[in-house]
């Protein structure tokens, strides 16, 4: 699919912006701080209803305004869909699909599919486990939008259970009333948690070969990348073995946990919670469950974190994003089902070899949107149409060279081509 038209009102640095975008490669070029990323961020927001840069919606609204509106028109095969999302400072966000009556914003998520690469991706590898959990959940939701309920349900139960643990701790002693209520929340946490856990285990199984493939394509193939889900819930065998397993992650179980049916997984979860109850009461927080799990990243036998070089770390981050792209492609065979690829300022971060390889992989996609401060950073394979971004709007469009091969030797000539029109 591709984005055909984008219009922003009161979004970030844009009081108003209207632009047509063509399928194929489009590069947004302009100096730092001019608003290139804001454009692709808006497109990413239409797809996922969240920004890749900030966790709250507030900064998306132009400073001093009450609301921001993003309108996009997408083409999927022969079908055109218009989505309008209104981000409100004070009230709930709303969305309209094809100019129909407003619906809840989250109903509009997933109509547009995107895979976004950004400098922030480095923290997928180097950052906290929470980033990797979020990555898994985002891929899960872009595959099946209604799976967002899995995470939301789990988090609601978790909040209640944590509140109970905290109040039990504050009370100083653990009464039978606390105990009986905690049993109830254990059951609910286990049910919601088992569903989320099962979905993640299945996803990692599907994602794994794609990560291996993507990493191989991005590098010379001397090392093999791998991912493994490390649940905090341990199998009954492990439970019997170690009596103080809270905080420990159990990689050996992955296969076995994935084989369990939901009711069995739920029971196992409850068993785990009971085992760690004392510790949980001491600390006043839930210690077992998908909110404590980790996605392990491996290069050969060693974990990426701490062992890999900077370049390898980047390759792993890109491989994770590419893998989600490959998985989306694999799961959706309908015409125009492939996601829009967005590469936000990533080329400046990569060395020449990774740039070229990444560009070669993404170039054939139906639509690729790239932002860059300087045209020099753009690999030859992505020298398509360029749009110059100036403060508050867009200036001049340059159609890139028809044949990529011609231009390979002098990519530096391209950014200047847009200037005369502006």
């Amino acid at each position, binding site marked *: 699919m591709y984005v055909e038209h984008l219009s922003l009102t009161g979004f970030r640095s844009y009081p108003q912006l209207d632009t047509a975008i063509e399928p194929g490669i489009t590069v947004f070029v302009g100096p730092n701080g001019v608003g290139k990323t804001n454009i692709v961020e808006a497109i990413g927001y239409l797809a996922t209803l969240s920004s890749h840069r900030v966790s709250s919606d507030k900064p998306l609204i132009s400073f001093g305004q009450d609301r921001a509106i993003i309108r996009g028109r997408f083409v999927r095969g022969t079908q055109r869909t218009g989505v309008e999302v209104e981000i409100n400072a*004070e009230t709930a966000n709303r969305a309209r699909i094809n100019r129909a009556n407003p619906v809840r914003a989250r109903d509009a998520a997933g109509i547009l599919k995107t895979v976004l690469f950004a400098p922030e991706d480095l923290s997928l590898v180097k950052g906290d486990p929470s980033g990797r959990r979020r990555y898994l959940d985002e891929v899960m939701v872009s595959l099946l939008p*209604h799976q967002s*309920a899995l995470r939301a*349900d789990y988090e*609601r*139960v978790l*909040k*209640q*259970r944590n*509140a*109970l643990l905290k*109040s039990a701790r504050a009370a100083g002693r653990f009464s039978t*009333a*606390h105990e*009986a*209520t905690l*049993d*109830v*929340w254990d*059951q*609910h946490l286990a049910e919601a948690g088992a569903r989320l856990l099962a979905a993640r285990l299945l996803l990692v199984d599907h994602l794994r070969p794609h990560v291996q493939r993507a990493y191989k394509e991005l590098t010379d193939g001397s090392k093999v990348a791998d991912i493994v889900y490390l649940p905090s819930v341990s199998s009954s065998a492990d439970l019997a073995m170690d009596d103080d397993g809270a905080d420990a992650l159990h990689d050996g179980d992955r296969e076995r946990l994935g084989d369990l049916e939901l009711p069995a997984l739920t029971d196992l979860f409850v068993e785990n919670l009971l085992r760690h109850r004392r510790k949980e009461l001491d600390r006043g927080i839930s210690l077992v469950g998908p909110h404590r799990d980790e996605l392990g990243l491996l290069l050969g036998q060693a974990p990426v974190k701490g062992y890999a070089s900077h370049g390898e770390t980047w390759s792993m981050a890109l491989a994770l994003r590419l893998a989600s792209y490959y998985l989306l492609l694999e799961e959706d065979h309908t015409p125009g089902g492939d996601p829009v690829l967005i590469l936000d300022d990533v080329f400046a971060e990569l060395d020449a070899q990774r740039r070229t390889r990444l560009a070669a992989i993404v170039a054939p996609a139906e639509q690729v949107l790239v932002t860059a401060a300087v045209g020099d950073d753009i690999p030859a394979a992505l020298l398509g149409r360029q749009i110059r971004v100036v403060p508050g709007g867009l200036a001049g469009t340059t159609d890139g060279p028809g044949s990529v091969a011609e231009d390979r030797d002098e990519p530096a000539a391209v950014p200047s081509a847009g200037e005369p029109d502006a």
Partner: protein
Amino acid sequence: MEGHPGAVGRGDEEHAAGRNRAGGPYSRRGTIVYEGAVQELIDELGRLPGVGPKSAQRLAFHILESDGEDMKRLVTAITTVKERVKFCTICGNVAEQEQCAICRDPRRDPSMICVVEESKDVIAVERTRSFRGRYHVLGGAINPIAGVGPDQLRIRELLARLSDEKVQEIIIATDPNLEGEATATYLVRMLKTIGIPVTRLASGLPVGGDLEYADEVTLGRAFEGRRAMS
């Protein structure tokens, strides 16, 4: 609406010293608020459930502009309700006497008790006219975030009723949300030991609706709760 002729602006500092700090987003943002009594009314109304700052403002101005007699009736109604209405000593429903009308009614079947969260749920079930048993109002649902545990609910009273009355079935009709479900689970676990059959209201598709309009959760639940027809 901020530009209403009745509105008088107040500075941020002056407001911070005032007593309306708990007010709506207007006071939080430190922008313009109304003078004294009007703002106090808006703040009070804004504390009511389901009333946001804008609605509170609209209600306040409606009250200001309405006929004095009408508003006196409103004030009397509020005062009377607080003075006269009590909660039924048996089931916890609202009542004007010691016991509510349903508990006093000898025609109601004492062998069935329908457990609900609030008095308004009693009315909802009553409207169906298909339940002839009695009720038990818990006064909420288990909600640790709000500090509501089993001890804050009328669960002990329910157990007491079970030992006195000849109850054959308990129907749990708490809300089908997380807190309601947790309360239901708690009750089921508690009542299992007593040996009285416990049922839970079914959840699933709304009657008269279209399948395509059901959200995923509802439809998923409906699948889980499907029943054999042959």
